[in-house]
């Protein structure tokens, strides 16, 4: 049995293809203006790494922000449930998930079967999201992939009081002008992000094991700050961006088997 999960986020799209119990392949693409095309592109990219074609996929579940406009999906399921299911497959011991996506951030609690028991989401502002990191990396003129490592070189964190992307940007410009080292500014930015998402985590309660998913899980600076606040070392999967799509594929398998 071959099924697919497609996660159309605000900044990136992912597809995961599952054969029986194993992950066959996956892909990550940038989200274009058309969610439907992003979904197609992601699925095609994932298929390219296999010997399969579109018609071999027996069931598809779409998730994420753009899930309702994936034309070839049999069903759509919220990214909350998909993240819990994906995380449970990768690490069955996980009970708390922090998904830090492109434009929102979610704290999720789940049980031993991967079913969501409690969740809170911040979709009001860009704080604690990939977009926030994007903007800061641009202001500091450091590639996004490097800001995590660079921040670790700081001896202390600069004071960035606002986790609002707009206000924090002007604070950072002021800090740069006053000659603060970029590493310390980044450390301050990561501190502000961690503060913000920690509030979300406290709302649902943190129970181990704890996993961080989404693109920001690749930012070691943010991960370390959150670990410090939570008092728990978070698990990070090999590819934290595909957890939602993986969950969608696992739902697809379940729904297909049910007929």
């Amino acid at each position: 049995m071959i099924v697919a999960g497609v996660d159309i986020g605000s900044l990136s799209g992912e597809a995961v293809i599952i054969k029986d119990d194993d992950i066959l392949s996956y892909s990550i693409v940038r989200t274009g203006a058309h969610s439907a095309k992003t979904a197609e592109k992601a699925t095609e990219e994932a298929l390219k790494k296999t010997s399969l074609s579109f018609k071999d996929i027996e069931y598809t579940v779409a998730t994420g922000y753009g899930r309702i406009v994936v034309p070839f999906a049999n069903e759509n399921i919220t990214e909350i449930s998909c993240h819990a299911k994906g995380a449970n497959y990768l690490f069955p011991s996980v009970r708390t998930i922090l998904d830090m996506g492109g434009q929102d951030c979610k704290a999720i609690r789940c049980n031993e079967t991967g079913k969501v028991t409690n969740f809170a989401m911040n979709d009001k502002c860009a704080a604690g999201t990939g977009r926030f990191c994007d903007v800061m990396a641009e202001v500091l003129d450091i590639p996004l992939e490097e800001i995590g490592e660079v921040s670790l070189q700081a001896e202390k964190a600069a004071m960035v009081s606002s986790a609002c992307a707009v206000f924090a940007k002007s604070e950072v410009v002021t800090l740069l002008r006053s000659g603060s080292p970029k590493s310390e500014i980044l450390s301050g930015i990561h501190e502000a992000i961690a503060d913000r998402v920690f509030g979300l985590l406290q709302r649902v309660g943190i129970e181990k094991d704890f996993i961080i998913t989404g693109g920001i899980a690749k930012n070691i600076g943010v991960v370390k700050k959150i670990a410090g606040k939570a008092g728990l070392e978070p698990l990070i999967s090999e590819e934290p961006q595909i957890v939602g799509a993986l969950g969608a594929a696992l739902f697809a398998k379940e729904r297909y088997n049910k007929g």
Partner: protein
Amino acid sequence: MIVNYGYADASGDYYIVINTDKCDGCGDCIAACPQNILELAEDDYGDVVVKVRDQVRSKVGYVCPGFNPGCSKNKVNCRSVCKHDVISHTW
């Protein structure tokens, strides 16, 4: 499942907390809400339960008057009509 609809910002916590495990889908709270914030919908696990409408989620603090400062003063409100204590507010 406990669902926290809303957000925290500099002025406070604005969450409507819904315990869907206790909800029987009767819909009484929907009629009781003066702001028409609530609706019934099927969740990912196939249960029809009450939720906060998607359009309201990011402005809950502005649309919902809150419980203590707002609807607790009304004879009928989303909490008074609920037999199972499904809904709570953080403000």
